[in-house]
C-alpha cells in the first residue's frame, strides 16, 4: 500500500512540475507551483522528514506562492518580446539533451551510492542530552551547524536590504509594497480578523515546540508572516515605512541575539556558539524566540517588496 502511495505521489509531483513549466499563462503556472509545493510537503512526510514538510508547506508552497502571485499581477510582458527570446527548436533540443544527461547522471549517481549508507544520525542523537533539546534537527541547526544557521539568518537581512535598495531614490523612506483598500466587510475582512489570532497562536506553537518536536523558527516565523500579510492585504494593517527604526531592529534582532549568544560562548563556554552545560536549552530558546520575530518580519518585507508609496 505505501509503495503504491509513493509511486502515485512521485508521478503526481513530476506531472505537476511538467505542467507548471509548459502551461500557457502565468497565473495557472503559479497555481501549479503551489500544488507542486503541497505535493512535495506530502513527499517529505512520506520520507519521515516532518520538519522539512513543515518548512516546505509554509515557505516553499505558501510564502513563495504568494510572492510569485503578486509578481504575476504586476508583470504583464509583451508578446513579441517573449517570442524574440524564445529559443529556437534546435537550441531547445540541445537544452533538453543536456538536461536529460544531467538528470540521468544524477539518477545513476543516486542509485550507486554506497551501502550501507554513511550517516551522522547516531552521532547527532548522541550529543542531544548535552543540549537539552529533543529534536535532532534543532540540534544540528542550533549547535552542530549553528554557523550555517547564523549565516542563513544574515542572508535574510541581506535580502531585505537588497530588495529595498532596488527602489527608486525618491521613494527611500517610504512604505513598502502596493496599497490595498481597507476591507470593512465581506469574506476577506472576516478572514483577516478571525484567522490571524489563531495563526499567531499556531505560529508561536510551531516555533516553540521546535526544540523537542518538528517545528522551529523558520516554520513558525513564516506562519506569523503569513498572518501579517493577510492583515496587510485586507487593509487592516499598515506596514511601517522603511525609515522606521523599529522595523529595522525587528529584522536584525534575531541575528544580533544569535551573535550575542555566540560571543557569550567565548566567556562562559568553550568558544563561539558553544553553550555551557545546563544552559544550552534556555539559550537556544532565546535565539529561537528572537529569530522567529526576525524571520517573520523579513518574510513580510520580502513579499511586500521595495518601498513605493509615501509615508
Amino acid at each position, binding site marked *: 500500500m505505501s509503495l503504491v502511495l509513493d509511486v502515485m505521489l512521485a508521478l503526481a509531483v513530476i506531472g505537476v512540475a511538467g505542467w507548471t513549466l509548459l502551461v500557457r499563462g502565468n497565473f495557472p503556472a503559479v497555481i501549479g507551483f503551489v*500544488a507542486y509545493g503541497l505535493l512535495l510537503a506530502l513527499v517529505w512526510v512520506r520520507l519521515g522528514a*516532518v520538519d522539512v514538510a513543515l518548512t516546505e508547506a509554509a515557505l516553499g508552497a505558501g510564502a513563495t506562492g504568494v510572492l510569485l502571485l503578486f509578481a504575476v499581477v504586476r508583470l504583464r510582458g509583451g508578446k513579441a518580446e517573449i517570442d524574440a527570446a524564445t529559443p529556437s527548436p534546435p537550441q531547445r533540443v540541445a537544452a533538453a539533451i543536456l538536461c536529460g544527461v544531467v538528470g540521468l547522471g544524477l539518477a545513476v549517481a543516486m542509485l550507486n551510492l554506497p551501502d550501507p549508507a554513511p550517516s551522522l544520525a547516531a552521532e547527532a542523537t548522541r550529543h542531544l542530552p548535552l543540549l537539552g533539546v529533543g529534536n535532532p534537527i534543532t540540534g544540528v541547526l542550533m549547535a552542530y551547524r549553528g554557523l550555517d544557521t547564523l549565516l542563513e539568518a544574515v542572508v535574510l537581512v541581506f535580502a531585505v536590504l537588497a530588495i529595498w535598495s532596488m527602489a527608486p531614490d525618491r521613494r527611500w523612506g517610504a512604505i513598502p509594497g502596493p496599497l490595498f483598500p481597507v476591507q470593512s466587510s465581506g469574506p476577506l475582512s472576516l478572514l483577516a480578523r478571525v484567522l490571524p489570532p489563531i495563526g499567531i497562536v499556531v505560529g508561536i506553537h510551531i516555533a516553540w515546540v521546535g526544540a523537542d518536536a518538528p517545528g522551529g523558527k523558520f516554520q513558525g516565523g513564516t506562519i506569523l508572516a503569513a498572518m501579517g500579510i493577510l492583515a496587510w492585504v485586507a487593509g487592516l494593517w499598515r506596514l511601517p515605512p522603511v525609515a522606521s527604526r523599529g522595523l529595522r531592529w525587528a529584522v536584525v534582532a534575531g541575528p544580533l541575539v544569535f551573535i550575542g549568544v555566540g560571543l557569550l560562548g567565548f566567556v562562559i563556554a568553550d568558544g563561539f556558539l558553544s553553550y555551557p552545560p545546563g544552559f544550552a536549552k534556555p539559550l537556544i530558546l532565546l535565539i529561537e524566540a528572537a529569530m522567529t520575530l526576525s524571520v517573520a518580519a523579513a518574510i513580510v518585507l520580502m513579499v511586500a517588496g521595495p518601498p513605493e508609496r509615501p509615508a
Partner: protein
Amino acid sequence: MAEALLLAAGLIFLAALAGLYRALRGPGAADRMMAAQLLCSGGIAALLLLAAATGLAGVVDVALVLALLGAFASVAFVLAARGLGQR
C-alpha cells in the same frame, strides 16, 4: 488498521489528483483555484490519516499549517485574479 487508514489516504489523494485535472483544463481561473483548494483539503485529509496510520510526531502540525496557509493562499489567489481582471 494502519493499512486501512493508508488505503483511505490513498483514495482521497487520488480523488484530489483527479480534481487537479480540472486545473489542467481550466477554463477559468476560478476552476483552477477550486482544484487547488480541493488538493489542499484532500492533502490535509490524507495527512491526518497518515498521522494516525504511522504515529509520526508532528504530521498533524503539517496539516494544521496547510489548513492555515491554504485559507491564506485562496485569498491571495482571488485577490490576484481580481487584480488581473481589473487591468
